[in-house]
């Protein structure tokens, strides 16, 4: 099948699978929620339609079976207990599996017959009826055939819609309009066809839909427009109206006969149903928002171009020409580039909820497996992140969450003994703070013991007892991130081998972020990941070190200050200062960078410029030669050849065209 359609099929399938996942979960919580059932039904129905269009028979038949079951459920013919829900989930997993098969190999490989048999049994046992494969009457879709060429399925919902909108003297037509082959701007013609039809009747459904016409590329709109129309016009009159439109080559109109008795019965049953239907205001029904799919590479190009624009704007400003209109122009340029930057940044921003939404299901499955009770609370799913960051975060977050369930939350009886609620809580929270995004994974489990971790680290040779003596609790906790800390014996099958905490840390750092731990025995543990808001453009402090200009990203800086030499104290041979009750080690930037200068000369100055930076678990004061200014910089990669230079994360181009290196302060001390 055409590559382009395949990709669209995958994108949309993934979305529907997601909707199904969330909604079945919601259904588990409240089996009576009709809106949720309907959402599930619609999603399955849409999936079936897509699968059928693409020719994936197994998927079509599977979704069809599920659709039937769902229809029974929403007509209150099927009991919804845990078994049934599990069965729905199993069906969903099969759907996911088949879609993945197609993604990987282009073929449907997963066997579905066993499941279908089970599902049939399940239906039989849960409803007292004999489940029949070919379903009759009201679960059948009315096939509207138009001139025997075209078939438009009508779902029960749509049949109800017709019922609601059809007057006594109205006809129901299935219409096929064919445009001339060389017709230009087909989407506009299609629009005019639908517009004309809507003027003389009520369009129940159409293909393409009005939305598709307005949003799709003109190339994707074909020559055929099909729709189901309720109209008072006689067929001949309708035909004339449509032929009046330019470029219409052919019009075929069919009468539609529907069996309305069943539809009416369903309606009556539903409205007299005593079960309450929850309001759908704040439910997990995921609305597929009106969006435009954009190639990520196009966004990247756009980003680069904005970056270039910004650089040149800065260079232009640096010229400081003496001319009246010069300042005006610079001012305008400034405003426009800032706005452009802002907009492009927003386009690249995507709500983190996208990767969060798989977690409830994961936690549910995991806690069942481990026989623990866990409540996952998600906050801040709407927080937006640059899209390139989001993809990378998924695996680390999965690992942290699984860890929390596996190692954090205690068994039910243990929790009871500790006087804790039997249900453990895991809080997954994302929020923006200043120019950073923070993501927290917090559990109320057994907590981490810094001393125990330190002991283990000493055993494994990662550190020595002397070093440990100088460490505070936070630094000891950081041992979990040391490579080689968790061995395969300790990593249970649940948390997974190979994705250790050290990998989590390195992924976070590769995104220019930091990860911190806080923990208290028996109270709980919290991991906090902080990420810079954007990857490519950031605010930085420009400093001079050994006559070269360096940029330190603002999100790594705690504060800047100048100190006098007498404030320098010594603790075990290390220069420190005391800043508002905190002892902060002082290091010479030039020395940390192995630059070829004489070290220690700063002590002879009257005033020493210092930048206090955050290096993961603690603050360090870096002595530099000169504090220059704060400005926005465009982060440029050092390129493939210089991929791993210590303490340097990239470069930026400064006003005069020179290169300034960007310092990576995380491990600088």
């Amino acid at each position, binding site marked *: 099948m055409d590559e382009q359609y395949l990709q669209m099929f995958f994108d949309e399938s993934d979305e529907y699978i997601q909707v199904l996942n969330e909604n079945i979960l919601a259904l588990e919580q409240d089996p009576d929620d009709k809106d949720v059932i309907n959402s599930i039904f619609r999603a399955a129905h849409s999936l079936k339609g897509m699968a059928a269009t693409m020719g994936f028979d197994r998927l079509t038949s599977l979704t069809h079976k599920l659709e039937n079951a769902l229809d029974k459920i929403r007509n209150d013919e099927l009991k919804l207990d845990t078994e049934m829900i599990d069965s729905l989930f199993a069906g969903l997993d099969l759907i996911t599996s088949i879609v993945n098969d197609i993604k990987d190999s282009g073929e449907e490989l997963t066997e579905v017959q066993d499941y279908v048999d089970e599902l049939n049994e399940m239906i039989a046992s849960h409803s007292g009826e004999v489940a029949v494969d070919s379903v009759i009457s009201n679960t059948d879709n009315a096939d509207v055939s138009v001139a025997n060429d075209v078939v438009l399925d009508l779902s029960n919902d749509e049949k109800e819609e017709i019922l609601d909108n059809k007057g006594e003297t109205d006809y129901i037509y299935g219409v096929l309009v064919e445009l001339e082959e060389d017709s230009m701007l087909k989407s506009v013609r299609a629009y005019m066809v639908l517009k004309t039809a809507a003027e003389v009747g009520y369009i129940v459904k159409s293909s393409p839909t009005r939305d598709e016409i307005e949003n799709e590329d003109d190339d994707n709109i074909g020559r055929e427009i099909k729709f189901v129309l309720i109209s008072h016009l006689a067929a001949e009159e309708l035909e004339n109206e449509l032929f009046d439109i330019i470029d219409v080559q052919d019009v075929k109109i069919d009468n539609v006969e529907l069996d309305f008795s069943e539809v009416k019965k369903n309606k009556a049953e539903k409205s007299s149903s005593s079960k309450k239907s929850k309001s759908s205001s704040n439910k997990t029904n995921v609305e597929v928002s009106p969006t435009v799919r954009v190639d990520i590479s196009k966004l990247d190009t756009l980003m680069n171009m904005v970056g*270039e624009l910004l650089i040149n704007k800065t260079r232009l400003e640096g010229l400081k020409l003496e001319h009246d209109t010069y300042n005006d122009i610079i001012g305008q340029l400034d405003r426009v580039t800032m706005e452009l930057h802002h907009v492009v940044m927003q386009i690249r921003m995507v709500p983190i909820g996208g990767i969060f939404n798989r977690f409830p299901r994961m936690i549910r499955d995991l806690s069942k497996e481990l026989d623990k009770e866990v409540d996952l609370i998600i906050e801040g799913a709407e927080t937006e992140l640059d899209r390139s960051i989001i993809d990378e975060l998924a695996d680390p977050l999965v690992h942290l969450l699984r860890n929390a369930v596996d190692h954090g939350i205690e068994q039910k009886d243990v929790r009871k003994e500790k006087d804790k609620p039997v249900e453990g809580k895991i809080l997954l929270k994302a929020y923006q703070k200043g120019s950073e995004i923070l993501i927290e994974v917090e559990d109320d489990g057994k907590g981490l013991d810094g001393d125990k971790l330190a002991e283990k680290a000493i055993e494994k040779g990662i550190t020595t007892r002397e070093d440990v003596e100088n460490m505070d609790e936070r630094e000891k906790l950081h041992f979990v991130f040391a490579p080689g800390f968790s061995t395969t014996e300790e990593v249970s099958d649940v948390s997974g081998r190979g994705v250790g905490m050290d990998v989590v840390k390195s992924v976070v750092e590769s995104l220019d972020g930091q990860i911190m731990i806080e923990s208290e025995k028996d109270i709980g543990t919290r991991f906090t990941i902080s990420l810079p808001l954007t990857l490519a453009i950031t605010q930085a402090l420009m400093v001079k070190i050994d006559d070269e200009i360096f940029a330190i990203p603002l999100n790594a800086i705690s504060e800047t200050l100048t100190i006098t030499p007498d404030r320098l104290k010594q603790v075990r041979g290390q220069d420190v200062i005391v800043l508002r009750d905190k002892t902060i080690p002082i290091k010479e930037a030039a020395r940390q960078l192995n630059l070829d200068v004489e070290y220690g000369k700063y002590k002879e100055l009257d005033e020493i410029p210092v930048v206090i930076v955050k290096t993961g678990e603690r603050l360090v004061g870096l002595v530099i030669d000169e504090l220059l200014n704060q400005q926005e910089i465009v982060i440029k990669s050092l*390129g493939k*050849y210089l991929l791993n230079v210590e303490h340097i994360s990239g470069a930026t181009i400064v006003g005069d065209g020179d290169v300034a290196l960007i310092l990576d302060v995380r491990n600088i001390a």
Partner: protein
Amino acid sequence: MEAVTVDEKENVVRDDYLNDGMHDNTGNKDQFVVFQLGSEEYGVNISQAKEIIKPKNITNVPNTPEHVLGVINLRGQIVPVVDMKKRFSIELDADTETDSSRIITVEVNDALIGIKVDGVNEVVWLDQDKLEPAPEVAGGVRQEYLIGIGKIEDRLLVLVDLNKILFEDTDEIKN
């Protein structure tokens, strides 16, 4: 054979060798950019060479090997610069920056890198089939890093494999 010079804009010119009416279509010919380090002449395949620029402000990058001089800004792109003499550890008047020093930007292994040389002489055509095998060491460079030796009249060009030279470990390259 007719050698083609580098044009005024210092762009490496691929000459229309086969269509200039002066040469025939025999042999397996390729163009090479000839550069100078000290008194030796070297050549790199023209397909790898992008442009030739006069040395500009190089920003030193800490924690890099000695032969990496730093990076430059090439129309908005950050390009690392490698001092070829230091790479080959040629002990000839190291660090002489003369008027003829140049940086040749090359594309190797999907990376854009600048190599600093004492001078760029010309672009020549060499017949691949007529190259001489490289001796164990030539021009201060060991055999594994060489494609071969090209002969033009009485000149010997040491043809280097940039991929290996730039991307394999340092210490083994030099003599």
